[in-house]
């Protein structure tokens, strides 16, 4: 994938061709998702007009908002050639923590809930990052371990109890459903996260360093990039965003138990990968990850409307992961071949 990023297109010789080619690749991926979305929405809507009702669209947007916040964090970690499998468990832990906090202190403003969720997630992310950075333990091992460990902590803490919507303050639940100028708060927050992360990754040294690390960790180290610090920062951000998603989850659903968000990590990885974030690191954008989150949510919603067995959802998630990484690979192979051919002609 790194090849495609830096490669000028065969046949064009302008200085800017490299950049426009890159843009084209991303456009191809993103327009592919948009096309799939249009076909899916059009087909589902012709089968059942309920699909395009205001309530249905709202549900899709709210679901996308939570998944997109998680997918942004995952994209940031994956760009550095790591992975964070613990996000579903961090979401669950933060949702339960914030739920208990709001239940026991009904007077607290919503912003406190958001900050508390961010903080819980940040602590989890910090732990992941420290183990990867200082312990030199691969991210897969660390986050597979904490996927179950954080979940276990939630169960231990909850001890079978559940936080019900009627115990939560109305202001908090209202935040989960209320809108500003017709746009739900959850969607606004997700868009804010997307835009901020998108700008930092695109135009700031901190963001560009993450891509450099993902393309080649050794080269990044030699170029003076503080790889260790940036790695732990990426995990910190991913954890904090998962914590934030936990708050959104609690506000939207109202009912939280220790199992909240179980298995979300698969959807999140799928959203990022489908959105064009390379599993080899060094390539992809949070915009793509956001689009991937939208596609996955629309698929889930379409299955329900079309009366298809809901159990297909998870199988589709798995198939999409395989399809996306397989397609990336084929494109990369083809580009490498094209480049070789061009080089031999020059």
């Amino acid at each position: 994938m790194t090849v495609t990023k830096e490669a000028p297109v065969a046949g064009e010789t302008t200085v800017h061709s490299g950049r426009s080619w890159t843009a084209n690749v991303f456009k191809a991926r993103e327009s592919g998702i948009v096309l799939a979305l249009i076909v899916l929405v059009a087909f589902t809507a012709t089968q059942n007009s309920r699909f395009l009702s205001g309530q249905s669209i709202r549900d899709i947007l709210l679901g996308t908002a939570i998944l997109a916040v998680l997918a942004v964090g995952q994209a940031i970690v994956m760009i550095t050639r790591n992975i964070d499998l613990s996000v579903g468990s961090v979401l669950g832990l933060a949702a339960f923590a914030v739920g208990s906090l709001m239940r026991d202190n009904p007077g607290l403003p919503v912003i406190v809930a958001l900050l508390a969720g961010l903080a819980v997630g940040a602590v989890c992310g910090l732990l992941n990052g420290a183990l990867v950075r200082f312990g030199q333990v691969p991210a897969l091992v660390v986050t597979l371990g904490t996927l179950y460990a954080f979940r276990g902590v939630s169960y231990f803490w909850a001890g079978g109890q559940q936080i019900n919507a009627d115990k939560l303050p109305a202001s908090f639940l209202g935040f989960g459903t209320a809108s500003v100028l017709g746009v739900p708060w959850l969607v606004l927050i997700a868009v804010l996260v997307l835009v901020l992360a998108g700008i930092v990754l695109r135009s700031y040294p901190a963001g560009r360093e993450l891509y450099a690390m993902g393309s080649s960790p050794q080269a990044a180290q030699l170029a003076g990039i503080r790889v260790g610090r940036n790695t732990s920062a990426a995990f910190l951000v991913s954890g904090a965003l998962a914590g934030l998603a936990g708050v959104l989850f609690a506000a939207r659903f109202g009912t939280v138990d220790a199992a909240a968000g179980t298995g979300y990590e698969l959807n999140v990885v799928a959203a990022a990968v489908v959105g064009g974030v390379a599993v080899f690191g060094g390539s992809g954008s949070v915009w793509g990850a956001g689009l991937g989150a939208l596609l996955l949510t629309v698929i889930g919603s379409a299955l329900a409307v079309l009366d298809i067995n809901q159990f297909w959802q998870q199988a589709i998630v798995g198939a999409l992961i395989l399809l996306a990484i397989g397609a990336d690979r084929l494109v990369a192979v083809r580009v490498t071949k094209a480049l070789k051919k061009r080089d031999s002609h020059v």
Partner: protein
Amino acid sequence: MSDSGNRLSRLLSWDAAVVLVTVIVLVVASGAVENFGTSRNFTFLLLDLLPIALVALPMTFIIVTGEIDLSVASTLGLTSAVMGSLWDAGLSIETIIPLCIVLGAVLGALNGFFVTVLKLPSLAVTIGTLALYRGLAFVVLGDGAVADFPRVYTTWVTGTIGDGPIPNVLVPLVVVALIFGVVLHATPIGRGVFAAGAGEQAARFAGIRTGRLKFWLYVVSGAVAGLAGVLWTLRYSSARADNGFGIELAVVAAVLLGGVSIFGGKGTLPGVLAGVVLLASLQNALRLQDVSNEALNIVTGVLLIVSVLLPNIVSSARTALRRRRQAVTPER
């Protein structure tokens, strides 16, 4: 040379430490945990560790080559679901069992295809199939269960040899483990596995077809997971789509605990079996103390991380020590 000697001694000491800790856990638990030392509990302990031990055998090979297979638990679940629906459809159990093992092999072959032919990272591939296979299991069987398997089979799987403490199913496990152990440590295939993990390019230059080797490892891993699915179903006399959910954690934890390096190229099968016993007895003792399964996952998750973290800390401490020594007595 001293470096390889060092590495060898470190490995031996890790294996020895795992065995020692296992013995300590067994002794302490027998004394401190009520009912742990009974022969009935011993049987349950062995029955519980069986699927993990079984799946850990091919997983050891795969991790030694530097790859991973996270889809094993889902393969187990899918074969269990298919077994249930075939039994419902009226096939005989003697037809179903081989079919399920073949199904496992096919699921493994799909992993192998993506990893070796398309050359995709095994982590991403097997996360994808983890979701795909578990999803298909639910598509096949929904959230119901099939329970009326023939008693001859279910009582054999839960039964013991001559009504002693040793479960019947331990016999095939020991046979399979011996085969895997011999192949890994005493045949060219095993040397190829280590070579591929230590340096894939070098192994290829040495004439080892690493791609083909890995492909077949995934096939075997799938087939063994399929067999584990059959045994799991018969043991609980219940085919369910969520059978074996999450056991990839215990399997990977046991393998790494057994001294296999997650970076590939290092590890022994006896060490892995010791890791399985350690993990299973720890879980068994805690379960007897009424610790919930979810809370147990904290222990397993922490053990997984520690089994990679600890060797890293030890080796970096040694490096630091060596450097300090060199600084005190300059070599020239």
